[in-house]
């Protein structure tokens, strides 16, 4: 498997690459192939060697590749680990390779029987790395590719597959700004921000399906993540390579091992920290002190935050797998069920589905067919989770439930207390639902045929479909409807979304060894068509709640014009992506490696003048430690230098941006044919300023890497230094008005530069007898600069964002200026308080003034919200049958804007609820909230993110059970930070243009504790 390198039909020139020229080049390639195959010689069988291969625990290893070095002769071990191979002579060397194990070489020396034991390969120098349209051995990789395999995944509850590798890869940021809400997603960013308005997340490729849907992947089906980090690696994915590529490989059946696996866990979330809002007792104290009037005491005691927390939340995961394989085929079928129960009420997600794959070969493995089908059904309850903000307005002396006719100011309509100008979340829970049913499917098939030795053609096709159905209903007893637009009637909404993508990718590969030279060539074509279709409808006027949303026509708004008009909408869009690509991998002496690739790709999304682009890459590696001059030293057991340069693009923008379309402007009365009454028709005008030159954002990236190993590879690591420049950034530019109709044009102008250093280290600290201690560390430094935003024609001085919000509409917190780093906080500088508690700020002229004296000139850069350093540390301890994982993660050198203290550490907001600090730490503030550096805090933190203790039972060799493991795991266990004295989680959004704002999202941050079990039989 090591030699599955791929071939490139042509060098990385940038010539225009038409369809015709591709065909011509293919013919050239063909000629080359024919020549090579004519020269390839078969070894002549002379001696037969037999033997058995075992692992370090003495168990037979099926499927081990055994080959004669320097020839094409090879075989594999059978079910019992036995092999038999014909070798040409006594000096022949047998090479035994197996994924995840050390490679062993034995010289025949006249032996007819050679038994070997393969050790687990800690350093995984021979691990197989997935690089897009193929695999490579780790040694021959010339680019920055990081791999995380199953044994290194984060354990415990996983809401998104990306949780498995959070913190594990230097340069890959996975952030859950929404806490552990089962219905929120993680945001992913690799090596910083590469786009302002386009897609900023890496391309996901699941088993070869570009643009794979993460919903289709559940944790136990994943074999590994391979992350293509630099431009040279991701250029083979051309226009979707700007943000890097994450290749996910799922597990397959193994030859000769028929087994069942069962995995299960249960888990519960516990609130980690709760905002310190004033309790009912404290509220009464404030009343007693005369700060607020007595009428504010309603005589009840309610902790609304605690009420909204679901203490009995319980999540579970069940997975059952059957897998196996015979001589020519293997299969794996995995069924799963997962129920994720959020910390909030009415906040859960239930998923189930399966993934089945099948693989069969014929004609001595020359013909191969593989196919997989995966589905995911999920039911999300979206009603709860968003209500915690009510804590800021809820009077803690008011009740949740109230009887009609009581003496509360509100008569407790339908059993719920109804505060003025607010809502009662429990009334919403009782009277509303907001549900999504989603169904995701993918099916793919790949046929490969080896025409002559080393020359394979393949055709890959896939269909991926994602569909959801939304249901929403507000009952006749809903608080908002009683006096609102719906006039006490029910309101229903339904919507449907379907998107699907069809992919077809034929490829041709050729690999050949000629003496000390090895060539792998790849050529291919890619066609991908995606479309989205939606419709939705809404209606009100339901005088009964009997139908919910199942009888939309019942709602009287269809004819009753006193009700808001019923809503009807539908939508469709599509796009096409077409590419030709090729790659050559060349190695000399298995020591010097060169890879070059090019992808020529066209997207329908771009302007008529710029549909196509070329994305070339070149990279090389030199295994210094294999040089003879390194033989004398004992320091380095491995030393490899890598250099790569690649150009990628970004097509992740909305469809139809370059076209002239008409948009609606609202309805206006028209009296047609002298009618006495008007008809209101839509009006139509230009929807945008057209830009036929709209083109790709292009990223150029240079990467230097050093892979190293010390002390017989007990310490290994990789160091990468990169500099990526993304040009032609798309942004909506203000155009001169007049003469343009619309105020903006979407066009390519700006440049972003990211540079950084990444270091990954693994060390076997202790490996003595029963005790093992391994350490893996990853860290990176990054700097993102907005180099250019303007040119002669289009000018933007800054991009403001990160709106702090109301009350007071405090505006944007962050300003990204041309030439500056990304994520600068921009605002007033705190100078103190006046004697009566008014804000004072520094003015630009050096004086000090109150808030109404501040102008735009007085604002300046006051901090930065983008972490510069990321680090993680995994400790794995094994003692006999126990294993313990302790995982720390941290982010450093950034500021956080604490909008919670900003808004609620302020007693001016009384009698609405405030933080206890409003009357303590912040008691001198006697004016409405103002944004300034007063609320910026250092965000540095170290988090004990995962602690897992496992036990593997000793099982009798002859028994039916092969493996039994029990474990307990805790995630997000403790955080060491100075931010807000540890009262709030410092892990806020760190991706995008506006990082570092701790928004008023009171969704509880939780510690998740789970207990699980894995059984193989």
């Amino acid at each position, binding site marked *: 498997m090591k030699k599955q390198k791929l071939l490139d039909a042509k060098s990385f020139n940038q010539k225009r690459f038409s369809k015709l020229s591709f065909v011509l080049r293919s013919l050239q390639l*063909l000629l080359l192939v024919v020549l090579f195959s004519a020269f390839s010689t078969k070894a002549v069988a002379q001696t037969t060697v037999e033997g058995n291969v075992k692992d370090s625990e003495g168990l037979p290893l099926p499927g081990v590749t055994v080959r004669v070095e320097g020839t094409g002769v090879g075989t594999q071990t059978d079910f019992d680990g036995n092999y038999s191979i014909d070798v040409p002579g006594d000096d022949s060397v047998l090479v035994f390779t197996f994924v995840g194990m050390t490679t062993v070489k034995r010289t025949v020396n006249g032996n007819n029987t050679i038994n070997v034991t393969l050790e687990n390969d800690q350093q995984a120098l021979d691990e197989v790395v997935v690089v897009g349209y193929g695999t490579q051995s780790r040694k021959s990789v010339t680019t920055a590719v990081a791999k995380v395999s199953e044994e290194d995944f984060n354990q415990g509850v996983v809401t998104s597959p990306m949780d498995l590798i959070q913190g594990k890869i230097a340069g890959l940021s996975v952030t859950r700004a929404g806490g552990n809400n089962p219905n929120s997603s993680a945001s992913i960013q690799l090596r910083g921000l590469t786009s302002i308005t386009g897609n900023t997340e890496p391309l996901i490729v699941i088993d070869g399906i570009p643009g794979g849907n993460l919903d289709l992947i559940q944790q136990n089906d994943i074999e590994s993540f391979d992350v293509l980090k630099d431009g040279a690696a991701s250029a083979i994915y051309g226009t979707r390579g700007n943000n890097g590529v994450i290749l996910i490989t799922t597990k397959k059946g193994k030859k000769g091992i028929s087994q069942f696996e069962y995995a299960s866990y249960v888990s519960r979330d516990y609130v980690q920290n709760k905002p310190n809002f004033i309790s009912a007792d404290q509220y009464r104290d404030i009343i007693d002190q005369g700060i607020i009037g007595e009428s504010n005491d309603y005589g009840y005691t309610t902790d609304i935050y605690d009420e909204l927390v679901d203490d009995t939340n319980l999540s579970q995961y069940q997975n059952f797998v059957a897998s196996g394989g015979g001589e020519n085929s293997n299969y794996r079928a995995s069924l799963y069920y997962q129920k994720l129960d959020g910390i909030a009420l009415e906040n859960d997600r239930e998923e189930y589905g399966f993934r089945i794959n099948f693989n069969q070969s014929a004609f001595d493995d020359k013909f191969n067919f593989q196919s997989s089908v995966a589905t995911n059904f999920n039911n999300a309850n979206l009603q709860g989770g968003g209500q915690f903000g009510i804590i800021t307005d809820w009077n803690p002396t008011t009740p949740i439930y109230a009887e009609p006719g009581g003496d509360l100011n509100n008569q407790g309509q339908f059993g719920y207390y109804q505060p003025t100008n607010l809502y009662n979340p429990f009334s919403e829970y009782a009277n509303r639902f907001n549900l999504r049913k989603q169904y995701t499917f993918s099916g793919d098939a790949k046929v490969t045929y080896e025409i002559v030795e080393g020359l394979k053609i393949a055709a890959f096709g896939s269909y991926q479909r994602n569909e959801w159905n939304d249901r929403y209903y507000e009952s006749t007893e809903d608080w908002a409807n009683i006096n609102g637009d719906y006039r006490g009637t029910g309101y229903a909404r339904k919507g449907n979304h379907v998107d699907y993508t069809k992919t077809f990718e034929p490829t041709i590969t050729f690999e050949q060894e000629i003496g000390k030279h090895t060539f792998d060539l790849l050529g291919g074509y890619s066609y991908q068509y995606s479309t989205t279709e939606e419709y939705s409808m809404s209606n009100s006027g339901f005088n009964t709640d009997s139908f919910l949303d199942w009888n939309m026509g019942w709602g009287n708004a269809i004819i009753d014009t006193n009700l808001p008009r019923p809503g009807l909408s539908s939508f469709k869009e599509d796009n096409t992506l077409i590419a030709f690509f090729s790659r050559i991998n060349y190695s000399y002496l298995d020591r010097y490696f060169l890879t070059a690739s090019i992808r020529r790709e066209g997207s*329908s999304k771009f302007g008529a003048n710029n549909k196509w682009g070329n994305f070339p890459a070149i990279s090389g590696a030199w295994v210094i430690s294999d040089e003879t001059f390194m033989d004398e030293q004992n320091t380095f057991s491995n030393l490899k230098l890598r250099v790569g340069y690649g150009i990628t693009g970004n097509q992740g923008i909305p469809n139809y941006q370059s*076209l002239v*379309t*008409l948009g609606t402007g609202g309805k206006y009365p028209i009296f047609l044919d002298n009618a006495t009454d008007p008809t209101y028709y839509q009006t139509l*005008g230009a929807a945008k300023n057209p830009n036929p030159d709209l083109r790709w954002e292009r990223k150029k990236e240079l990467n230097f890497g050093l892979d190293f190993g010390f002390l017989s590879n007990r310490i290994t690591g990789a160091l990468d230094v990169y500099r990526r420049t993304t040009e032609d950034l798309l942004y909506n530019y203000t155009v001169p008005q007049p003469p343009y109709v619309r105020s903006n044009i979407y066009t390519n102008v700006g440049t972003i530069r990211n540079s950084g250093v990444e270091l990954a280290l693994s060390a076997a600290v202790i490996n003595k007898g029963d005790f093992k201690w391994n350490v893996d560390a990853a860290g990176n430094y990054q700097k993102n600069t907005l180099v250019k935003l303007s040119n002669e024609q289009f000018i933007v001085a800054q991009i403001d964002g990160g709106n702090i919000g109301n009350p007071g509409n405090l505006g944007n917190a962050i300003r990204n200026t041309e030439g500056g780093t990304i994520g600068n906080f921009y605002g007033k500088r705190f100078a103190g308080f006046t004697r009566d508690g008014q804000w004072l700020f520094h003015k630009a002229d050096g004086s000090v003034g109150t808030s109404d004296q501040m102008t735009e000139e007085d604002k300046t850069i006051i901090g930065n919200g983008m972490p510069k350093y990321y680090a993680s540390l995994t400790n794995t301890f094994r003692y006999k049958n126990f294993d313990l994982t302790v995982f720390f993660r941290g982010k450093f050198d950034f500021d956080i804007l604490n909008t919670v203290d900003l808004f609620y550490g302020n007693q001016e907001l009384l009698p609405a609820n405030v933080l206890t600090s409003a009357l303590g730490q912040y008691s001198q503030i006697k004016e409405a909230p103002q944004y300034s550096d007063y609320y910026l805090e250092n965000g540095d933190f170290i988090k004990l993110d995962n602690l897992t203790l496992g036990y593997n039972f000793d099982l009798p060799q002859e028994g039916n059970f092969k493996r039994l493991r029990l474990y307990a795991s805790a995630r997000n266990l403790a955080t060491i930070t100075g931010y807000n004295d540890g009262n709030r989680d410092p892990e806020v959004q760190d991706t995008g243009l506006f990082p570092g704002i701790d928004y008023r999202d009171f969704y509880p941050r939780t510690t998740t504790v789970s207990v699980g079990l894995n059984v193989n039989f």
Partner: protein
Amino acid sequence: MKKIIYNKFFICFFALIGIVSCTDLDETTYTELSKSNFYNNKLEIIQATLRPFTHMQAWLAFTGQNGYYYHNELSADQVAWPQKGRHAYDNGDHIRQHYHTWTTEESRLLNTWSLMWTGVGYVNAAIEDIQQVDPEAAGITQEELESFVAESKVLRAYHYMKIMDLWGNVPIVTQVGMPENPETQSREAVFAFVEQELLENVEKLQPLSPQLLGRISRAVGYAMLSELYLNAEVWSGEARWADCITYSDKVINGDGGALAGSMMLDQDPLGPYNNTNENSPENIFQFPFSRQNDFGYSWASFYMGFSNMRDALDVTYSGNNAFVVIPSAFDAYQENDIRKQEWFLFGPQYKYGTTEPILGTEEYRDKPLVYVNNIRRNTEGQTGEGSMTDGEENSGARFHKYRSGTKDDENYLENDYVIYRLTEMYFNKAEALIRQNGGAATSEAVALINESKSRYFSEEDWPSEMYTTSSLTMDELLAERGREFIFEGKRRTDLIRFGKFTTGAWWDKTPDGDDHLTIYPIPYRQVQTNPNLEQNPGY
């Protein structure tokens, strides 16, 4: 032989790719409308002609917080958007409007510029496109086509008049995208362009009739000319009082048609604004909003209180408690003035039709909400005039001129927003007469103003309230104009014409240093983008 077979196989393999999948990247639109598929018939031509009309409500009516209305009212002496505790600091935007301390970087001003020029762009595009239509193919006559063009040109002149009012010196552009960076023209030149376009096209318009509701009719054109000439001295440097009188008279005499029978003042003090005001005999030009027809009237967010006020008016909407009446503007009304009773919400607020109090939610949380005629921190014992940063949730009298009707009213929220009404023509003519007369009232002028004012007083009060040639001074004319047109988005223009905008002091506003503030700065971003734009003097 074998090799040859392989060869053929490959050729087929790649030929297949070439034929089946090809390299076609054309786009198909499904939900969006492409321009090439439009302008096929009369209705479609009208739909394109009317796009700038629906757009106009975004910058002219008080539905927009980034429009002409915002700037023309909040910089003047009647309406303010003060900070009320934790609400409405809004980056100091409204405070700077009130204090006249705006800069070239005001985001709301940039948005206003953009919105108004987008309107010009829509008109230019409509004129360009309509002129290319083959009338025969579209099934309309050449005359109809020309009348659409004339209507669009008059509408464009109106846009330029309002743009000139805010910014003075601006480019004149009549084509889409041409020239790339148009040059600034003097205010005189813009004035001349507006005048010429109006004079050339007004007579081609149809007379106002119920079927021209919301459209540019001849009466609307005359009203524009009346406004143009009334402000000619400010805008062009040359007074044109006689021309103002001429065109005011044309409207008053019904030469431009009428919406309901004949032009006359509406005797109902709420008639021009209520939810059946498409029938008011004094209305000339209005946005025909219609909730029932899915073009809703949504003034609520700026003039309406929070949701606690829903019960006071028995309506389904609520707002964000933004605009309030400046105390001196409320004090400008006599107690016996019907307008003071009808056009404002003031004092204790009750649930509709009851004496059950509406409760506050901020400073007066769970206490009765009582609108007071001051803007200060009464809960903290503040006295005196207060300031732009000292508001509370109940500060100032509130807007009640346009009433939606209660939610059970069959015409609930059907109010049109009025741009020109006959009373304004009376005031324009009267003012022109007085100015022609050196600032002293003439009896004709007094009669005109009295005809308007008499509607708001009882018969017994009227003798003491009516104007005479001696009591109708210029200051009094400005005050009465303010009382009559409060909330109608015209106050800044009036203050400038009376020379009070920069010299006057009202409530929290002190006199400005000089006159450059009578026109706003060209937004910085636009000056940056178009090198041929000249910044206005003083900025």
